[in-house]
């Protein structure tokens, strides 16, 4: 079955009607998904533009340096409070969550792993208001409106995130590495700690940072626990604390242009911190993957 050169050229270059249809459908589809992608990004862009424009006039040094009741009011106490609440939350849920993730990945039997993973899924699905209500009705009556109650509520929310992220990065550690260690006569617990966890450490730390940024943005549990205050509070978790999400919520309902403006400005600060953390973490992960 020989084909002449001429017919090959024709075969390659002359489109059939079916192919023309396919090319047209292809074009339409590309335009459609392009529009969909644009629509998905639009709210993000609008959000950033709006927040920046509304916040810009209020971003003055006193906004960062002063507290709400000063003559030139600011949100220093809210920034300080947010960082303290999220920091302590990560300090508490971090070690427990990491240990839990290590247990599920390195020690637990498949049956226990299945139970543990289901538990994590359920905990991940707990709406933050539910964690807030729990802290409000169980802890607040004992501890009062306080940083402790807030940290407890936030820990309930970040614990499953820590466990899941730890378990998942440990799963990426090749089994061959663990076997190499076991075959050297290294006990299982030392293999888990000094080989598996050591290898996955950058990923585990990334999980900690992401949990921190999650805690930073939580609002509902804070309204029901730390409740907000006009005073500056350094490390006294036994009393009320201010936090950026609380400020945003309360100020945006205020009948004052200054406070509404400061709500926008606080939103920008919170967004910038969270975004910076996420970008840094992303850079780190990409680096450690290529290295």
């Amino acid at each position, binding site marked *: 079955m020989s084909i002449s050169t001429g017919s090959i050229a024709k075969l390659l270059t002359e489109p059939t009607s079916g192919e023309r249809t396919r090319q047209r459908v292809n074009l339409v589809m590309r335009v459609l998904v392009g529009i969909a992608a644009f629509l998905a990004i639009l709210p993000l862009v609008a959000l950033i533009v709006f927040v920046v424009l509304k916040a810009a006039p209020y971003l003055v040094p006193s906004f960062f340096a002063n507290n709400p009741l000063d003559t030139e009011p600011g949100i220093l106490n809210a920034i300080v409070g947010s960082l303290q609440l999220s920091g302590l939350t990560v300090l508490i849920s971090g070690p427990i969550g990491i240990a839990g993730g290590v247990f599920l990945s390195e020690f637990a039997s498949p049956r226990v792993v299945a139970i543990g993973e289901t538990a994590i899924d359920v905990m991940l699905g707990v709406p933050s208001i539910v964690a807030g209500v729990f802290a409000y009705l169980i802890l607040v009556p004992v501890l009062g409106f306080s940083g402790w109650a807030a940290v407890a509520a936030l820990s309930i929310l970040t614990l499953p995130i820590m466990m899941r992220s730890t378990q998942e990065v440990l799963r990426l550690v090749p089994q061959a590495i663990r*076997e*190499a260690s076991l*075959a*050297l006569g*290294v*006990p299982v617990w030392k293999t888990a700690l000094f080989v598996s966890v050591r290898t996955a450490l950058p990923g585990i730390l990334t999980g900690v940072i992401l949990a921190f940024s999650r805690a930073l943005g939580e609002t509902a549990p804070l309204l029901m626990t730390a409740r907000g205050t006009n005073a500056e509070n350094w490390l006294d978790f036994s009393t009320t604390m201010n936090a950026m999400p609380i400020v945003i919520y309360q100020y945006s309902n205020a009948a004052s242009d200054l406070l509404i403006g400061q709500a926008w400005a606080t939103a920008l600060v919170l967004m910038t911190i969270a975004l910076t953390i996420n970008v840094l973490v992303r850079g780190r992960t990409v680096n450690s993957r290529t290295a």
Partner: protein
Amino acid sequence: MESGERNAHTSPAGAMDELAQATARPTAQKAARAASSDNDAGRLTLDNVSARYGAFRAVKDVTLAVRPKSVTALIGPSGCGKSTLIRTINRMHETLPGATVSGSITLDGVDLYSSNVDPVRARRVVGMVFQKPNPFPTMSISENVSSGLRLTGGTSKSEIEGIVEDSLRRAALWDEVKEKLNQPGTSLSGGQQQRLCIARTIAVKPRVVLMDEPCSALDPVATLKIEELIRDLAAEYTIVIVTHNMQQASRVSDETAFFSMDDDRAGYLVETGPTAEMFTNPKQALTEGYIQGRFG
């Protein structure tokens, strides 16, 4: 004394004594002492060994005597349980979920599966090199070699430095890496990584070294280097090597054991003998067919 003996290359039976002391049985101790006195340490005896993954039997009733300080090659078609079998020798098989071993494996008279032998200790005495080079990615070249010593403890820092150099020399890698001991182990080429893994294995001073197709991921030049190394190491260690490469088996091994697969997909030992004899004059038709490339 435990660490002292393990650190001395001149006391080849040290680890066996150590292992024997872990077992309270006097007969085992006697056997171990007898073995160390004639400097013939590292005699491995497999008796009726079967290995299972859950209900599936991957290896059945293997009885095999491995001569000390020699190279024994396990050959046979894919899936006949060779890798599973050598993983039973250092008790790695049982680390997989549902995996079990029956029969007995003795090293200089001590049953490695005796209830008094801690699997962790058995793995210190029976080292293993894997199919794909697997250096620890977070450790430098030098840390990789010393990892077993550091993670098992009992060796001082000053000793470790000497052992690292000694192990790298034995693994014929020292000259290539002595200038860059602090670089990551994963920065080396595949062949170098495998020699690094061999250095890491012999740094903990095992008596037996298992090798599971150690060259299958390497190019021919690197393969030749590893093969030379295996021959050198045979002067001090009992070596059991799984290989798919018939030429490799004939080049490096003193004894060859040929495995095949039964109808129930369980691997079994067909025959064993001196390598030269196995390749020129096998007793079984099955062996002859495999070696001549008629199947497998």
